[in-house]
């Protein structure tokens, strides 16, 4: 557009006087250097892909590179619907075509090393990228060492399926192959972990599949925690839809798993009590994704401390960490929160590069869960930032769906659950 201005138009603009100075200013600057800054983003999930898109929307002159090994990103949200047989993998896979069309460079490789002093990222394919600002959105990695006798290689037999992808397919295949009358064990980790209501939606979706196809089967949840997200609503829904098919064992009643017996497809707790299952879904304790550890962005919690207003790392300047990997105050580790971080972080970076005032950040989270195909529940919150508290929840707002409503309300929330997925994935990858 303005870059294509020709000599005659330029003279006309100059001749036009000072009123036009602002548009000339833009022309001159974009001529002087073609970009307003180089931003590299590592990770193309809800955090990174959203950040890339909104950076480009806020400032089309930025030079933006998104580094993501996968050609198609499979979301963890709605992978439970695949397990329940309500969705196919294709419908939860998203490409980066829209990013490319926006002029964002998408490199399908992984980041190997970050040099925070030289402001460079080394990629697995040998390329080095220089940046003015770096965004790291690496998602989660697992603390295998916290589970006795478990190694990453065992995850094929005992899939965690806590990243959308091949493990989702493995777990689905195990469910369809199991006999009627079998037990599916789900073992959620202690806090904090990705998607707090996720394991309980998973139990719901698996029960929905079993009820229709293998009605003598059971779902046993062996929980490291003593309570969980939207607990009364889930339990109310389970009773209404599945009777006593789902059993939840609290962490203080033997639910806390400390080790596995891979050959016996069994989990054992701190008392040595074993539970064997036809299908065992162990969701290991978690920490920030690999590159965050390699780049010294984590503290002793295993997660990444940040300035919660800008998501700039507390450990290295000009590097921002967003999504599940970051310590984002009161916000949960969710795809919704990561999408939100992406926008706040994009605003912080554009404001910093242009030396303008960043607007007050706006943070929101909503987690929808399906208890049954037509039975949805939600938890929502609005957050603000203060220097003293970081990101905190606004007391007057938020909360869970009401308990005392009829099936119409649950049906409407189930429709909105699907509507939410359509919206957030198009907001992130569209």
């Amino acid at each position, binding site marked *: 557009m303005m870059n294509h201005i020709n000599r005659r138009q330029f003279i006309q603009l*100059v001749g036009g006087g000072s009123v036009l*100075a602002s548009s000339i200013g*833009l022309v001159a600057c974009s001529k*002087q250097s073609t970009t307003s800054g180089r931003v590299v983003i590592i990770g193309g999930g809800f955090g990174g892909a959203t950040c890339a*898109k909104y950076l480009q929307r806020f400032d089309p002159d930025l030079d933006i590179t998104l580094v993501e090994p996968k050609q198609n990103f499979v979301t963890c949200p709605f992978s439970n619907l695949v397990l329940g047989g309500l969705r196919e993998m294709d419908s939860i896979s998203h490409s980066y075509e829209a990013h490319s069309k926006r002029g964002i460079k998408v490199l399908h490789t992984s980041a190997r090393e970050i040099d925070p002093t030289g402001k460079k990222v080394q990629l697995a394919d040998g390329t080095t990228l220089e940046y003015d600002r770096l965004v790291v959105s690496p998602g989660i990695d697992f603390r295998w060492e916290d589970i006795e006798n478990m190694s990453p290689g065992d995850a094929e037999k005992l899939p965690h399926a806590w990243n959308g992808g091949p493990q989702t397919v493995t777990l689905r295949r195990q469910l369809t192959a199991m006999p009627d009358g079998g037990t599916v064990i789900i073992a959620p980790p202690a806090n904090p972990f990705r998607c707090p209501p996720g394991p309980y939606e998973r139990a719901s979706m698996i029960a929905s599949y079993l009820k229709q196809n293998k009605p003598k089967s059971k779902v046993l949840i062996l929980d490291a925690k003593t309570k969980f997200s939207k607990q009364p609503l889930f339990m109310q829904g389970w009773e209404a839809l599945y009777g006593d098919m789902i059993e939840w064992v609290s962490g203080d009643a033997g639910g806390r798993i400390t080790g596995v017996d891979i050959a016996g497809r069994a989990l054992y707790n701190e008392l040595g009590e074993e539970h064997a299952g036809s299908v065992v879904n162990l969701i290991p304790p978690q920490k920030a994704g690999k590159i965050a550890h390699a780049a010294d962005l984590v503290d002793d919690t295993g997660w990444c401390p940040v300035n919660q207003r800008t998501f700039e790392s507390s450990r290295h300047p000009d590097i921002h960490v967003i999504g599940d990997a970051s310590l984002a105050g009161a916000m949960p580790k969710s795809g919704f929160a990561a999408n939100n971080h992406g926008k706040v972080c994009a605003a912080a970076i*554009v*404001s910093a590069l242009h030396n303008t005032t960043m607007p007050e950040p*706006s943070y*929101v989270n909503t987690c929808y869960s399906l208890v049954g195909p037509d039975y949805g529940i939600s938890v929502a919150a609005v957050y603000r930032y203060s220097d003293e508290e970081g990101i905190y929840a606004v007391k007057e707002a938020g909360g869970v769906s009401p308990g005392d409503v009829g099936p119409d309300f649950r049906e409407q929330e189930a429709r909105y659950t699907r509507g939410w997925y359509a*919206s957030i994935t198009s907001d992130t990858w569209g």
Partner: protein
Amino acid sequence: MSRLPFPAALLFTVASFSVSFNASAAEISQGAMLSNSCAACHGTDGKSPGAIPKLHGKSAEFIENALMEFRSGERDSTVMQRHATGYSDEEITLIADYFAGLN
């Protein structure tokens, strides 16, 4: 530099005055910041592709009234009361004006 089509000196003279103008062009409004949060459910720019109501194409009055009524409980909702109670009158007006401004 060598690609500049016109006397570079003049261009740079102009450029030196341009910093603040360029900066204001990239300034992100409070309305945009607030409204971008809505996009996760209502779609980018309020263009919801699914079951959640679109905000794109709605008037400022419509959005402002809806948010005020969700907040007071005057209008029934599933989740919107839980969101609307998190915002001041001024913020609701900024959100309504932002979406209406996209029309």
